[in-house]
């Protein structure tokens, strides 16, 4: 029983980081109907950025959060301007395939310059565990999930309360109508893509405090995020947040009950069953 509660806690903790990742992805998906297969690789860039800031400059991953956010925001802007925006006018298939190309390029380029080896940051400000009546709570994981919650709510607040945020939501609801209302949809596209990347940058810094860092770390994160976003419902921020926690719990508990090697298969199976019953996702 104690083991089960422990797994549940772990599941919620990783699930909250998934939520943050998925919110970045769902923003891009909702606003411009683009599935970004390089999302996980952006995460990898964020993790490596924190790693190098720590190794070369002694900056703790917690303090590299704003640096990561700005750096990945700019990277997102760049990639949108020079690649994504050009493909947006083309057929749907090209929009699906182009981010695969970016993903393969980024991960293999990282492997070339940083070697494919696994790395980790050993002595961060956050290390150790709390023991709460037998349930172990890893401090970096706990702080990361708090960071994810704060960032997610920050995004939510931004979208609901600022002019730009409302414009993003308007484009997500109806692109043509937004255009008629005088919203510069092209600017909203690039901004959403950049914000989505910045969120991944934040998640990268948080994950770097306890997760292994290597060039191909993005692959599984990316796939899991797709399932979360689709589960949460097309472009729904709240949906992605809830689905992220759900997937984290299902993955961890499923791995515990069946076998750890099947934990991703369980997530994918859950996705297939959900879209079978509700093709539009949980909140669509």
């Amino acid at each position: 029983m104690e083991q089960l509660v422990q797994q549940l806690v772990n599941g919620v903790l990783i699930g909250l980081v998934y939520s943050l990742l998925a919110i970045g992805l769902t923003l891009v998906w909702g606003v411009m109907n683009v599935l970004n297969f390089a999302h996980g690789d952006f995460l990898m860039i964020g993790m490596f950025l924190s790693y190098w800031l720590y190794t070369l400059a002694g900056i703790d991953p917690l303090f590299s959060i704003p640096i990561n956010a700005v750096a990945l925001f700019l990277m997102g802007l760049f990639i949108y301007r020079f690649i994504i925006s050009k493909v947006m006018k083309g057929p749907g298939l090209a929009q699906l395939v182009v981010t695969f190309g970016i993903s393969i390029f980024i991960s293999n380029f990282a492997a070339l310059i940083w070697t494919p080896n696994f790395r980790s940051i050993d002595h961060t400000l956050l290390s150790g565990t709390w023991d709460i009546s037998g349930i172990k709570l890893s401090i970096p994981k706990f702080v990361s999930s708090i960071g994810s919650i704060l960032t997610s709510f920050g995004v939510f607040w931004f979208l609901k309360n600022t002019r730009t945020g409302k414009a993003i939501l308007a484009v997500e609801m109806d692109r043509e109508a937004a255009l008629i209302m005088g919203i510069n949809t092209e600017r909203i596209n690039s901004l959403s893509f950049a914000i989505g990347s910045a969120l991944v940058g934040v998640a990268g810094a948080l994950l770097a405090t306890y997760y292994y860092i290597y060039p191909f770390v993005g692959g599984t994160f990316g796939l899991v995020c797709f399932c979360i976003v689709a589960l949460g419902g097309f472009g729904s921020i709240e949906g992605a947040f809830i689905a992220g926690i759900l997937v984290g719990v299902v993955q961890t508990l499923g791995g515990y009950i069946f076998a750890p090697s099947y934990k991703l298969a369980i997530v994918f199976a859950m996705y297939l069953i959900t879209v079978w019953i509700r093709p539009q996702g949980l909140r669509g």
Partner: protein
Amino acid sequence: MGMHTISGKKLAAGGALLTLLIILPLVSSSFGQHVMIITFMFAMCGVAWNVMGGYAGMFSFGQVAFFGIGAYTSSFLVLTFHLSPWIGLVAGGVISALLAAAIGYPCSKLRGHYFAIASIAFAEIVRIVFTNWDMVGAAEGLTLPMVKESLTHFMFHSSKLPYYYIMLLFLLLAVAVCYWVSTSKMGYYFRAIKESHEIAEVLGVNVVRYRLFAIMISAFLTSMAGTFYAQYILYIDPESVMIMPISVQIVLVAMLGGANTVLGPVVGAAILIPLSEYSRAWLGYKGTGVDMILYGTLITLISMYQPAGVWGAITNLMRRGK
């Protein structure tokens, strides 16, 4: 329907091309033959993808599941029951088609990105199951025993030529099936479904049934290519026949050549596969991944500058030339 009757000119061009393809391997190096075999194999998979992706509008990124099941079914039957790979070829195709129907049915309402993700999820489940399934060798995979070379054993040691001609025949079969689909009533139903499920339904098309037909035909053909691969390489494991990059390569071949055209994927494969095979041979041996970096760049550039396919551009030029 004059569009679909093959003109004498086209027939002559096709005959000349076929003659060239029959003669070409006789004057090629062994590596050249290998590249052509792999090219045909991906061309076949691309043509198969086109049936469901190009015509019926279901963008599958999980074709590797059927490829892998084809490879595994025949190899398993050879190892366990000493059955001929040709029987395994049919068995793999039938299993793939049935599995495709079983997964396609619950997904029959899914479109666009949701379908793409479902196809990836399905293929990943298949990969994970095979990686952990002891009966099929789990992560270690299956190694086919060396037997005397013969057509019934689907195994040849002294030369790659028999593999080449078998693969060429397979490709022709796939092209014939795709041509038949595209010109039959079914092809029109597929296009209607691609345009809109609602309109197709109003026109009286049974959307669920015809989507399943498309997926099953596609799965059967892809599975055949998988069996061929197993007999050609003689060793398979989940990392070589069930990983997502193969699915992506299949989509890419179809997209580069031109989805929604019969010969597009063949043209796409003829451009992309030699490029990636030769760059791997020249740059990949160091294990630095430079070939993959170039490959990623190539995918990005194709999507940006040639998203509608090369074949469409070529036929447009020819039409304008007339």
